[in-house]
């Protein structure tokens, strides 16, 4: 299962670039998403991560402190990280 890496700046442009990768990586297992480098996270990326979590076998996200902070701010910590490394 290839690991999908999130860049530091996770704006809509980044989300649009990652969507095809995520679609291509869909399979039997949960997607592996490495968000440990994410510094700035926008709504489009949050939506993409939520979508990835609810698509197929779901997704496992390795978050950065910034992503954890954003998830708490937006009430999405349980949606994004429950059952994952968070």
């Amino acid at each position: 299962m290839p690991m999908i890496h999130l860049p530091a700046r996770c704006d809509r442009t980044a989300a649009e670039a990652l969507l095809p990768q995520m679609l291509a990586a869909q399979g039997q297992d949960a997607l592996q998403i490495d968000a440990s480098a994410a510094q700035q996270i926008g709504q489009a990326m949050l939506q993409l991560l939520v979508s990835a979590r609810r698509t197929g076998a779901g997704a496992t996200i390795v978050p950065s402190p910034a992503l954890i902070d954003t998830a708490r701010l937006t009430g999405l910590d349980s949606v994004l990280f429950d059952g994952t490394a968070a």
Partner: protein
Amino acid sequence: MTPQEIQDIFFVECEESLAAAEAGLAACKAGTPRDDTVNAIFRAVHSIKGGAGAFGFAALQAFTHALETLLSDVREGAVPITAPLVELMLRALDVLSDHVTAAREDGAAPEDGALLAELEAAMAVKGGVAAPKPARAAVSDSGDGGALDDLDLDALLDDLAGPVATADWVVKLRPHAGAMRHGGEPLLLLRELALLGAVCRGCDTDAVPVLGEIDLHQGYLGWTFSVPHEVSAEAVRDIFDFVGEDCAIAIGAQAAMPPVRIEPVTPPPPVQDQAAAQAPTPMTPAPPSQPPPAATGQSIRIDLVKLDRLIDTVGELVIAQAMLVQRLQNDNFGACDELAMLEGLTRDIQDSAMSIRAQPIGSVFSRVPRTLRELAASTGKSVALHLVGESTELDKTVIERLGEPLTHLIRNAVDHGIESPAERVARGKTPEGTLTLSAEHRSGRILIRIADDGAGIDRARVFAKAVEKGLIGPEAQLSKEEIDNLIFAPGFSTATSVTKVSGRGVGMDVVRQNVKDLGGRITIDSEEGKGTTFTLTLPLTLAISDGMIVKVGDQTLVVPLTHVVESLRPETKDVQGLGVGRMMLNVRGRFIPVVSVGQAVGALGAIERPEQGVLIVVDTESAGQAALLVDNIWDQRQFVIKSLDTHYRSVEGVAGATILGDGRVALILNVDTLVATSLPGLEAA
């Protein structure tokens, strides 16, 4: 549109907002605020804050937040408008302007700690959070064009309008696609909400589709936040004001979460609505129940390069039209109606193109109050500013290049013109000086006056200084105007010591040069003890002008119409000799020197006797009026100015070149230099 382009728009709008806030505070200071003046100031500061947050300029955002909080208190009546408060806010505006500059130029943020403390001390509730107030008060001024007007806020806020709101309250938010357009980021707004103490109680993710169906341009998430009771609904509303209806808001625990609104995504249009950067609005038509706003005051932003290209093309059109006229005249078709129609249309197109570039001079004037405040602080001279004709429009390039000479003239007026309060009182004047800036259109030109009620030019001192500097001989007989003009001589300065205010190494000669470079002139009118007025006469545009096409020997030349007073065919008795080789023209009892253009430009075969040719009486800066002797006047028409500096090099006595109807190049005379160099003894002035 790239984020950088959007940011550039933000900074342009910052300038506009700063000018609007400055104008509003000036009205407060003058005691003439309208009902909506404070609202206008608030909106201006608020929009800067919104953009600062969106682009991550933390220092700018923090400072605007403090100023905005104080303004919010003022508009709610919690803090009264007093003279010291207006002064404080004006100073805050200066620092805000510095913050904007720092953000734009990526420089260090200005020191604002002391001022922030002052702002906080002036707030109704110390510490930066607006006082709690009945919700009804929060919507009472919704006439300020708030983006939530479309919601039934009255009804939504009813459940908060109890006698005293003591419980935390709930707000539900759902950013739509528009809130994420043009680099907009709703999460930044949520962060701002969190800064007010709001806590997220849940995120509605039900609408988020699976990966195969997701459209990342849409907003699928909705949030429920719990807001501390001491935070007003208006404070929350203000945060989301920035995105307008692109973020649906419902207030109250019982209110339903606003539904998802899937919008067709269209590519960004080539031009942007003026408010696009701060309030991205959906490009799709509004639902029928929400008619689009009225078309009044709509505007677009255009890349200046495109506009300049249009002006250039219009210039070429003017030339092509002149060529066509010439060709048809040669074939005896010169009098046809179609040609007159074409000429009229060409002029209309030119006027329209020029009007696009035109901007009100108020944008230059708006910087003056700050200059005066700084001068008051450094010189101790308090000066009241009186502005007239701020809406007078002139070319953007002229506006941009006018700032520096204008600032210098104003510094000069305050530093050297207006007396100290004690001196003024001793002379029976008010302790506060007055500076009047006025602008008006007059016969195709712009007149800008800078008038002070100070001491006026001390001509004896100017004369002595000019003698000392070797600019004139001690026995020179000069008129008042000639003495006044000495202050424009290079290297001239009457200040006994170089002050930090006006002694910046820039003399009045540079001011005059700046004005000349703009194709304008500067004149002085001074009365000792009463004050001095500098008058700048500028062309409306730098690209196309009107002029007389004259023939001088083998040369065809253009005399800009801005200088021309009249033209006449003199009789022998009207012209009298003076000494060797000089002639004076008698114009209704007044004698003015005759300048032979043929001699000045070295034209071959030019007529030498005035009675054989035509005299054009012109106004000049340094030599008053003069009569230019030419062979004859061919035509009076528009001409497109082509810079010689750009295409060749600067030539004394020549202001530029133009292309005539027959395709030949004609030089445009620089009347001031031509006359000054042709009349010995006047160059120094």
